């Protein structure tokens, strides 16, 4: 009975304040869509990291007769030099850090290169002797590439040591910046949403001020007075959150899996099944935000 009364009051509040409720829904929709996008970007970064970092290797490029960098002097690395580098990789100081390594000679490098750049004109310009012989090293902990740099970077016959992760870091820092931007925009929008909800609830309380005054006089408990208003805010925000969830689903299905996946087929993009986690976050955030700001707004009216 009493619950019924609370629900009817909340419904009446929503009905009387339609314009404000619609604006609450829209602002919540936009802000939570930004929050959701930020979470999606982070998920994408995580999935790319785990996908690529495991595959990322440290390349120890050896000298060719054309290279002038490192310890090279336009001379092909000699068999002794190669053996020395390999001995270093096998040494007891490095083995704890190295998962595995393998050697790639000119011909294998050429085969891989033509495979990788198939159809590109650059293949015709490259001959096997241009491509360096390489030790490909897989580390147990991919972040510890500095050890390889130190151990073999200065040896004669080594042109350069390259951690492939450094190529990825550029991409990831770009994605991180994008997700930080989304978080920043979301934070501003969330502040606007909170203030708007508070204003809406105050208006709603204002249109029911006679009832409120009488409730206070006859001794209705505070929760009884507050609950309809908090429900009102939560309902409006939840509608906004649900729309935001819909917007996120649309973005994932049509933009990420549709457009991006088609234009970049080799990259693994997040699927809708990975992004379920976003929906409870959005719904929870919307509800907490609305309940909090509605509570603060209505408490002003209940000071005894």
């Amino acid at each position, binding site marked *: 009975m009493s619950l019924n009364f609370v629900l009817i009051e909340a419904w009446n509040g929503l009905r009387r304040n339609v314009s404000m409720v619609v604006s609450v829904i829209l602002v919540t929709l936009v802000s939570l869509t930004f929050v959701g996008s930020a979470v999606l970007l982070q998920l994408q970064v995580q999935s790319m990291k785990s996908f690529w970092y495991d595959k990322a290797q440290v390349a120890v490029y050896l000298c060719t007769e054309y290279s002038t960098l490192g310890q090279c002097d336009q001379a092909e690395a000699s068999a002794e030099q190669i053996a020395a580098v390999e001995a270093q990789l096998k040494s007891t100081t490095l083995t704890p850090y190295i998962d595995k390594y393998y050697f790639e000679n000119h011909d294998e490098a050429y085969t891989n290169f033509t495979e990788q750049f198939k159809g590109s004109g650059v293949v015709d310009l490259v001959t096997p002797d241009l491509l360096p012989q390489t030790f490909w090293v897989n580390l147990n902990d991919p972040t510890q590439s500095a050890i390889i740099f130190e151990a073999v970077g200065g040896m004669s016959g080594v042109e350069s040591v390259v951690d492939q992760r450094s190529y990825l870091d550029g991409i990831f820092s770009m994605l991180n910046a994008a997700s930080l931007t989304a978080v920043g925009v979301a934070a501003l929008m969330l502040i606007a949403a909170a203030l708007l909800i508070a204003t809406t609830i105050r208006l709603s309380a204002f249109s029911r001020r*006679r009832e409120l005054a009488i409730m206070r*006089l006859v*001794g209705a408990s505070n929760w009884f007075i507050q609950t309809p208003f908090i429900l009102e805010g939560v309902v409006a925000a939840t509608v906004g959150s649900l729309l935001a969830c819909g917007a996120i689903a649309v973005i994932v299905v049509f933009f990420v899996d549709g457009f991006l996946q088609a234009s970049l087929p080799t990259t693994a993009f997040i699927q809708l099944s990975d992004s379920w986690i976003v929906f409870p976050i959005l719904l929870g955030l919307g509800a907490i935000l609305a309940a909090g700001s509605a509570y603060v707004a209505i408490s002003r*009216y209940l000071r*005894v």
Partner: protein
Amino acid sequence: MIRFDGVSKVYRSGNRPALHDATLEVKPGEFVFLVGASGSGKSSFLRLILREERASSGQIHVLGQDLGRLSNRKVPHYRRNLGVVFQDFRLLPTKTVFDNVAFALRVLGKSEAFIHDAVPEVLGLVGLGNKENRLPHELSGGEQQRVAIARAVVNKPAVLLADEPTGNLDPATSNGIMDVLRNINAAGTTVLMATHDTAIVNQMQKRVIELSEGHIIRDEASGSYQTKAHAIITEDFEPTRADSQPILVEPLDFDPIPDFDPMAPSSEAIDLSYLDRMKDEDPL
């Protein structure tokens, strides 16, 4: 039942105490008039009992509760023991007579079965048994005040506070209201009524507490009340006043979103009057 021990009330912005060192006791079942000019402290007195305000010093005990120690959280529960009636009725304009009275029970979570027993009973008590489905604007002032009284006593409070309940009513209607209050008192409810109306006080012959500038200057068991203002009105204005309707003056200053400040020095009575200055629609 109600005990004041050296109670003073100073409002934050006021230079003069609204109530000064008031000590008195009201016993269960008494009918007490609070009289005095505007600003004499009658309203502060009622606000203190309602716990709209806390005393600046001194102790107030109502129904065994020390109001100085009553936490804000417990105030709603405490107020269920009190009924309140105002000069301006404070009915909900969109609800019928029945629903206005039932509202007080619904917000306390009472069952519909109980409401359908209690409301007709109390409406009968105030003489409105046949007007359950009317809206407030279809009723006369006296009938509206009866609805307000019904709402105040439907929960069977131990104490009824009435702040100038006859202030907007003509003398004949006022007498009807006083009959209702007398019946309620006779049924055991303690009644505390603030009023300017000398005729009513003199006719009822009940206890009178007179306030002047915050001091209790008189407390008589079955007293009367005379004022200079009353003399002037009787001499000069009585003939025209008797047949004219009271005029309600709407203040012109309009504060669209008022800060409810019960400490404001201009506060009259239990001042929720800012609520009534506003229009009722969605502003958009």
